[in-house]
């Protein structure tokens, strides 16, 4: 047993402590999706280890396996050299693993103290637990400089402090291994800096930290080692000091930079959409779209690249009238939209601005509806399909069948429930509905997510021919290849802002990867020059 362990951990010298975390051959499938393929990972105790990768590379799945949310189909987990079965959060906590989730697992109406105690109380009556917890929090504060008012109510705290409470929760439970899943996604730059301070001091005290992120700058700033994931696999391990952002970006997106011999549009027409200094805050007051300006002209595809959650979704919903904007204005097909003069989704459709939403399950289709019913979503009030008081179902069904034939939806059955079509065919129904109306501006979000390869090609072809017919298309995608394959111009969004604007022809994948990961400006610039 011991012999075999030392054999495998070959690179670690004899007498060294075993790695804090060791994953061997972890494999996990969700139906068709192979989320983790034979993943090996070794994290040395007392280090900060980063895991980078694009959306959907399998980082979160891997961490969920480590934390007991999912069980791996195959493979082994060893913590401090001991093989362990981690089947629940409880097992993970027992093994000294704490996790700081992207969405905090805090009870908003509780104080920090109560949150920290929850599940780790020291007796049936709270008063003693509270005294002990308070003392322990004071100790943690002294040791790590983690300052949070224990009596503050969580929902009244700024996000950065909520996150500190989440970290405290893990430490209070004696976690020696801390997993942080995209911890800076919700933080301001200042808060991020504070977090890094905390993580460094945790490391000094011997805590092992596993940091999942897509921001390369954080990896360079903070980590000792870094592993790169791509398509469910770990494709590289590096000592951080021996690599750079350029190499990591390349590893993340894959070396294969194929030539995209797409017929780029050379004769874009008038600006159909002109966005000026648009900003938007969400319900919590966090700025999601930050002072964005750009134009889309007739007969061109403008692609917006970026890692998911950087404001692209909100931007599309704003332009389609679903969300109101807080400041700035935009001009679409001659209509000026401002915070004082908002527009509804209905108005936008009337202006020939159509929207293929990212989330076809909840927005684009009504799953329990028949395909024919879903095929009029948003157009249910049109005179063409209303005969007197009633919807003209024979016509709707005929139209739907026609659309299905044109867009190669299988099966061509307008009476089948929307939920019974495959992902690709569902997406084609949405695209067919929105493109069929010959819009002058088409807003498209994630047109090929969860869609099979054949359908991807078809959808891309449809978008290009739409453009050639003079439609202005704004395309949001987290798939860089898709952006590169279709766009005449590429904008990169990061934290609600547009941080890059490059021509589609000859755009460089590495450079875009750096922009998306908000790599330091020099790295991006030097790349752009080279």
């Amino acid at each position, binding site marked *: 047993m011991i012999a075999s362990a030392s054999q495998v951990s070959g690179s670690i010298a004899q007498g060294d402590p075993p790695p804090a975390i060791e994953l061997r051959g972890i494999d996990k499938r969700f139906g068709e999706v192979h989320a983790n393929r034979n993943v090996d990972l070794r994290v040395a105790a007392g280090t900060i280890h980063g895991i980078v990768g694009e959306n959907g590379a399998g980082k979160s799945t891997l961490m969920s396996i480590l934390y007991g*949310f999912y069980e791996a189909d195959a493979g082994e987990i060893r913590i401090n050299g001991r093989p362990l079965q981690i089947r*629940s*959060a*409880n097992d993970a*906590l027992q093994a000294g693993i704490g*996790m700081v*989730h992207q969405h905090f*697992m*805090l*009870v*908003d*109406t*509780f104080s920090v103290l*109560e*949150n920290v*105690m*929850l*599940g*780790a*109380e020291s*007796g*049936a*009556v*709270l*008063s003693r*637990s509270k005294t002990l917890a308070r003392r322990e929090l004071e100790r943690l504060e002294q040791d790590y400089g983690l300052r949070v008012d224990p009596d503050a109510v969580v929902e009244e705290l700024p996000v950065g402090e909520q996150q500190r409470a989440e970290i405290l*929760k893990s430490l209070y439970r004696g976690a020696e291994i801390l997993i942080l899943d995209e911890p800076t996604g919700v933080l301001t730059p200042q808060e991020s800096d504070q977090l890094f301070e905390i993580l460094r001091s945790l490391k000094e005290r011997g805590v092992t930290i596993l940091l999942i992120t897509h921001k390369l700058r954080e990896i360079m700033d903070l980590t000792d080692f870094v592993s790169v994931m791509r398509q469910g696999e770990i494709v590289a391990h590096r000592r951080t000091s021996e690599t750079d952002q350029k190499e990591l970006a390349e590893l993340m997106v894959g070396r294969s930079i194929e030539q995209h011999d797409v017929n780029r549009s050379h004769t874009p027409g008038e600006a159909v959409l002109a966005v000026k200094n648009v900003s938007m805050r969400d319900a919590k007051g966090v700025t999601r779209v930050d002072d964005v300006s750009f134009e889309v002209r007739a007969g061109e595809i403008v692609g917006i690249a970026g890692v998911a959650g950087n404001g692209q979704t909100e931007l599309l919903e704003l332009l389609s009238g679903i969300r109101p904007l807080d400041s700035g204005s935009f001009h679409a097909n001659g209509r000026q939209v401002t915070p004082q003069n908002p527009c509804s989704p209905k108005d936008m459709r009337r202006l020939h601005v159509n929207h293929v939403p990212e989330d076809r399950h909840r927005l684009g289709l009504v799953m329990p509806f028949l395909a024919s019913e879903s095929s009029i979503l948003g157009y249910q009030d049109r005179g063409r399909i209303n005969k007197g008081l009633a919807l003209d179902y024979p016509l709707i069904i005929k139209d739907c069948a026609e659309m299905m034939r044109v867009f190669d939806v299988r099966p061509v059955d307008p009476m089948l429930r929307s939920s019974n079509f495959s992902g690709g065919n569902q997406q084609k129904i949405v695209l067919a509905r929105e493109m069929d109306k010959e819009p002058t501006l088409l807003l498209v979000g994630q047109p090929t997510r969860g869609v099979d390869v054949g359908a991807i090609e078809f959808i891309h072809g449809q978008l290009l021919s739409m453009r050639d017919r003079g439609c202005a298309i704004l395309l949001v995608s987290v798939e860089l290849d898709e952006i590169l394959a279709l766009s005449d111009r590429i904008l990169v969004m990061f934290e609600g802002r547009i941080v890059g604007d490059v021509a589609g022809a000859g755009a460089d994948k590495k450079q875009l990867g750096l922009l998306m990961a908000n790599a330091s400006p020099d790295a991006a610039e030097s790349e752009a020059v080279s």
Partner: protein
Amino acid sequence: MAESYTFVLLTLDAALRVATPLVLCAMAGLLSERSGIIDISLEGKLLAGAFVAGTVAAVTGSAWLALLTAMVATALLSLLHGFACITHRGNQVVSGLAINIMVSGLTVVLGIAWFARGGQTPSLQAAARFMPIEFPLAETLRAVPVLGPIYTEVLSGHNLLVYVALAAVPFVYWVVYKTRFGLRLRAVGENPQAVDTAGISVTGLRYRGVLMCGLLCGIAGAYLSIAQNASFVREMSAGQGYIALAAMIFGKWRPLPALGACLMFGLLDAIAIRLQGVEIEGFGEVPVQLIQALPYIMTVVLLAGFIGKAVAPKAIGIPYVKER
């Protein structure tokens, strides 16, 4: 002056009697709803408890046995609610309504089948009931000005279950705010995922919440049929379970404000009875029905956010599904 003082005291005394089942049911509802399970079946459980207590007391002549069986019966109903809502993730409102309607029918059906008195259970002897308890020196202290009558008229002379109800409030307060169980119960009603990731069973907590709810409803039911009255009468809960629900909401899911709401609603009822047919100068007769409807009207107004805001536990009504 002395006469109106006595009038006030007697009204308070009556209010306390009316408020007792409300207090018990409101505390019961609070324990369930704080765990995230809506309970509109307080009404049904109250009625079931009253029927079982009335029946067992009539058959065995033991008030204590009656109380115990009533609590068991209502606990079983609560477990049924839990089985539907927690285990099978059924709609909590539908389940509660089903229990209310079922109990409303079954108590009459069984009452008539067993006792053949039009749904009433036989009248109980004093030994089979919880009788008023006179506090020591109650009669002697009556003479003490101002405070004496309060002691004699309002505080003394209730049956045991009235005092149990009053004791239930600090007890529930203690459980909810001062114990480990209470901390977890409140957490599971707000954010079950946080509880799950902390390694605690969401299902187990919620079942315990509804179970305690059932036990308290049983006491309330027994109060109706073997303490306040001397037999079970069909539909004797008469909407008090719903008033308790309103009081709990009015108290914003907190024990002490809920107690306040129960006492206020009880007082309204006592006043309504006393004002029946009374002319008030310059105003005419006070519509008693208006006073009786006030608890409901006030709850609607409160829920619409016009007087403060009643914020329910965040996860209430939503079955917990472990995220995949």
